[in-house]
């Protein structure tokens, strides 16, 4: 019989099929694999949902869009030659009904809409463009504009004829500043909203069997200054796709952390499982089994349990897609693709099994290499065993885990940095554990027996102090981090920003009526602050010797190169900006066009003063010389522009003004009504609405982070439970002897609590620091928010965390309290 077959025979026979001793391994691995599989499967389902429904989401196979200019006859001919074309216009506007004005996202569609998917109304009808003089409205608007009633857009009145239940291309539309109102294209001119210089986008969506990439290329070549921004069905919602993939990557990292922590739990579980098998191992060795055979026997048992845990974990992870799809159908922007995705499951299984292998390596080596006589004499604790032979068994799977993590990451450097940080935190906590262990042996011994025992419990042979500190530290760190991230998000969205933010953004204020506009606002509220700026939209097409169209990939941080951007011109340096290099142009500057660029964009593109910047604006290609770099305070929530040009660079382009209006409390209605009456084509957007939308996204993000982090907390708790369970024998012994000597169970419980409290007190400060540091990175670096955690919430959450870990720790010790002294004495 071969060695492995023999090991299998013995291992299978010896395995307790109720997994006693290996349940913690089972649970830790199940948790880690399930969390990884869930995040991976959800990301894949989301991605496939985006891919499979690309044409529907985009509303065509390819879309060409640009600001404020309809296609020329030649361009239209090219579009129509490729397939069926649907034309639409999108803009921010204001619906006025009676005294009230409501910011809306206006979408005008022609008879071809929708090319793909179906536009469904709440009454069950499947419809196309609304008839002349009527509109389909979003359900959010229907609450304020009843079905059948009339409202005004610009200078034209519409009747609300249907409530939109399903808008097939909603996700492809991206961010909107209000509920959707859909009208027919033929009605649009009568609204008066499409004036020269107005901000609106015209889109041509094409249903075609042709190669869309070739078509994109053809259009760019045929009309290089056309300023067309194109999207294809494969990248129908680039913002959403990018957001989901970044989010999935971030959550995967958090869940990988959970798996790393689970690895510690697995290592502890395997070590205490093998300790409990000492007499069996000794007997096997006495009977002639060598170290390799012992290793094989227990490796097989561990592999069996790990395999089952992985399978169950994959099952749970795969179920996450249908569960989330059903439970969160109203929240998700697209229907999830519920077909099983194998790749994330295989990846999760790979991570899980490799983690189990790495975590088992040293305990297996320790058990297999201790001589039989030593095992028979009792505990091997404190015995120095050379673990060098086990190192390859640890390092190979660990290297494979790293390779897998980096190989499957879209940003390997970030992943490497993150994993390095996790390793650093774990090493720091382990170091602290060692210090606590060392220190507790050195401090003067207190007189009280319980405090003395509690201290001794921290440094006694076999004490799980290091494991406990790591588990407590990770758990408490995660608690702090979640509290700090969430409260910072809330503070950013509810308190800080609104105080500094304007009450309204106004779009499309006619340039020649700027003073009239200002006058209306001041008349309605004398303390109002009105800032009017020219707002144009254009695309950066090149800089220096580089053409943006030739870039294989947009450099990190150069988001301004994606699509159209708002641009402005100014005589003076705009407020909220400070010059960091170069000079501002003099008043009445009349030389060659100059531009001032955001320093972060300049850094991302390695721009230098004097470089040439090229941009396309309403179809004409222009260029300007870089005169200065500015630092922008983005938190002001005013109009901040990446590019500010000298007035002579843009003054000839027809455009309108935009405004920010700061108001004292209670003045909103008067200003809104005053503007709605005199400026029908001007859209007034309450900043609160914008913030609410951002808030919804951020709230979703923080919920997702909390879910993923809870996997890490659970893993930490599993480690804690495992460590306390591994220490149970020593605790039971102490407890029984103390009870023989007259201690009550309440006193023993106090002893356990004291030990955890001592540890928790030491770990709390470190966890607080680590948790706040992690949260700071997430809040300021990842989401670019203001760091403003609520100290009371953080403290309260830390308190809850402390109580939780204390209860878990005590729960793990309860069985040692229930041991009956007379019976325990026979076995101890």
């Amino acid at each position, binding site marked *: 019989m071969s060695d492995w077959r023999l090991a299998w025979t013995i291992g299978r026979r010896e395995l307790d099929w109720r997994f006693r001793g290996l349940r913690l391994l089972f649970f830790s691995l199940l948790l880690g694999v399930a969390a990884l599989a869930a995040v991976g499967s959800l990301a894949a389902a989301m991605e496939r949902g985006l891919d499979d429904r690309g044409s529907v989401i985009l509303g065509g196979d390819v879309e060409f869009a640009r600001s404020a200019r309809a296609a020329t006859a030649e361009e239209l001919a090219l579009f129509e030659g490729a397939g069926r074309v649907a034309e639409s216009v999108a803009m921010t506007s204001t619906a006025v009904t009676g005294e009230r004005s409501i910011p809306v996202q206006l979408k005008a569609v022609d008879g071809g809409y929708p090319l793909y998917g179906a536009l469904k109304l709440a009454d069950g009808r499947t419809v196309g463009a609304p008839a002349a003089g009527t509109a389909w409205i979003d359900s959010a608007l229907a609450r304020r504009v009843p079905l059948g009633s009339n409202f005004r857009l610009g200078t034209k009145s519409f009747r609300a004829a249907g409530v939109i239940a399903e808008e097939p291309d909603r996700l492809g539309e991206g961010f909107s500043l209000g509920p959707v109102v859909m009208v027919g294209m033929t009605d649009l001119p009568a609204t008066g909203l499409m004036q020269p210089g107005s901000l609106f986008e015209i889109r041509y969506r094409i249903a075609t069997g042709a190669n869309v990439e070739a078509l994109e290329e053809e259009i760019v070549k045929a009309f290089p200054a056309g300023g067309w921004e194109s999207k294809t069905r494969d990248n129908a919602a680039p913002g959403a796709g990018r957001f989901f993939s970044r989010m999935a990557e971030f959550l995967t990292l958090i869940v990988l952390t959970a798996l790393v922590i689970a690895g510690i739990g697995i290592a502890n579980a395997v070590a205490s499982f093998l300790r409990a098998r000492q007499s069996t191992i000794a007997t096997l060795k006495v009977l002639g089994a060598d170290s390799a055979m012992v290793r094989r026997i227990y490796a097989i048992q561990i592999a069996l349990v790990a395999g089952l845990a992985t399978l169950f974990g994959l099952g749970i992870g795969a179920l996450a897609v249908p569960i989330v799809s059903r439970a969160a159908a109203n929240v998700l922007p697209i229907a999830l693709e519920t077909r099983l995705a194998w790749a994330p499951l295989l990846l999760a299984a790979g991570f899980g099994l490799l983690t189990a292998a790495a975590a088992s390596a040293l305990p297996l080596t320790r058990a297999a290499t201790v001589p039989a006589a030593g095992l028979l004499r009792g505990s091997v604790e404190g015995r120095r065993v050379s673990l060098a032979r086990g190192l390859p068994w640890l390092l190979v799977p660990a290297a494979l885990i790293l390779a897998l993590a980096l190989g499957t990451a879209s940003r390997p450097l970030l992943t490497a940095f993150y994993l390095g940080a996790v390793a650093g935190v774990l090493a720091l906590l382990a170091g602290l554990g060692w210090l606590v262990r060392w220190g507790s042996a050195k401090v003067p011994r207190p007189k009280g027996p319980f405090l003395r025992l509690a201290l*001794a*419990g921290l440094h006694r042979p076999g004490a799980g102090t290091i494991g406990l500190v790591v588990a407590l530290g990770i758990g408490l760190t995660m608690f702090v981090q979640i509290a700090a991230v969430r409260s910072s998000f809330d503070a950013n969205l509810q308190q800080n920003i609104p105080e500094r933010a304007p009450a309204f953004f106004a779009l499309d204020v006619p340039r020649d009526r700027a003073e009239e506009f200002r006058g209306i606002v001041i008349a309605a509220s004398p303390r109002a602050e009105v800032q009017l700026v020219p707002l144009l939209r254009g695309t950066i097409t090149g800089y220096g010797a580089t053409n943006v169209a030739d870039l294989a990939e947009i450099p990190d941080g150069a988001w301004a190169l994606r699509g159209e951007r708002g641009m402005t011109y100014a005589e003076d340096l705009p407020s909220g900006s400070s010059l960091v290099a170069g000079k501002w142009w003099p008043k009445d500057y009349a030389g060659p066009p100059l531009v001032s660029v955001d320093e972060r964009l300049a850094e991302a593109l390695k721009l230098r003063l004097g470089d040439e910047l090229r941009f396309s604006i309403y179809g004409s290609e222009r260029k300007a010389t870089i005169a200065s770099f500015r630092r922008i305070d983005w938190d002001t929530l005013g109009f901040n522009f990446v590019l500010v040009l000298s007035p002579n660079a843009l003054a000839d382009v027809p455009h309108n003004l935009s405004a920010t209006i700061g108001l004292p409390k209670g003045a909103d209605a008067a200003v809104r009504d005053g503007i709605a009456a005199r400026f029908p084509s001007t859209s007034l957007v309450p900043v609160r609405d914008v913030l609410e939308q951002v808030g919804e996204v951020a709230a979703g993000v923080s919920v997702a982070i909390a879910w993923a982090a809870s996997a890490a907390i659970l893993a930490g708790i599993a480690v804690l439970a495992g460590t306390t369970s591994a220490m149970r024998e020593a605790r039971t*012994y102490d407890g*029984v002897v103390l009870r023989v*000597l*007259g201690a009550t169970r*309440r006193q023993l419980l106090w002893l356990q609590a004291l030990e955890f409290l001592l540890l928790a007190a030491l770990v709390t400060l470190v966890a607080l620091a680590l948790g706040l540091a992690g949260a700071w990175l997430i809040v300021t670096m990842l989401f670019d928010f203001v760091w403003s955690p609520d100290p009371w919430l953080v403290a309260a959450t830390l308190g809850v965390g402390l109580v939780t870990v204390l209860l878990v720790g005590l729960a793990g010790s309860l069985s040692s309290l229930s041991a009956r*002294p007379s019976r325990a004495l026979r076995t101890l």
Partner: protein
Amino acid sequence: MTDMMIHARNVTLTLGSGEAATEILRGIDLDLAKGERLAILGASGSGKSSLMAVLSGLERANGGTVTIVGQDFTTLDEDRLAEARRGRIGIVLQAFHLLPTMTALENVAVPMELAGHDDPFGAAKAELEAVGLGHRLDHYPAQLSGGEQQRVAIARALGPRPGLIFADEPTGNLDATTGAAVMDLLFERCDATGSTLVVITHEPVLAKRCNRVIELADGLMIADRVS
């Protein structure tokens, strides 16, 4: 009755339930007066350690009454039994059962600390000196020989000056010479402190040192001899 240290009537103990139920003690009656030296003899499995567990409050009898130093043990729960032992009952076990993380001095002080003794460490030091371990006060159990560990255990049992001492096969883990020395010490200290002593043993030689011997077989008391 005030001088009666143990008063037990019809004590029964059954472990397990249903078909697995095993009768360990079957109607034991026992009275033990202050100052007596009692040996409980019997083969392995005869129930002698279980009887000691019931009499010392480590186990509750299923039936009968057990009154120890005037206190009815049959009505007390686990924790009240623990409290009842404090300062009144000392126990010496075969496997010593010292607390490994505490020094000899600390081990001996623990029961006195639990009993609220005024000067547990002073008393512990005196008791250790009395058992000949004045030079081993700060040694941990792992640094002591078996005989020394059992002497610490005796000091720990006698430190609070209990009226009643139980010793369960106290020489079982020791060689003959050391065992004899430990027993000499146990008897000496009990004489010195006036404690009543109950020794569980299966060694007739050891039993002869007691003024009374009872013998158990299959949970029944089959002999009760007073010398």
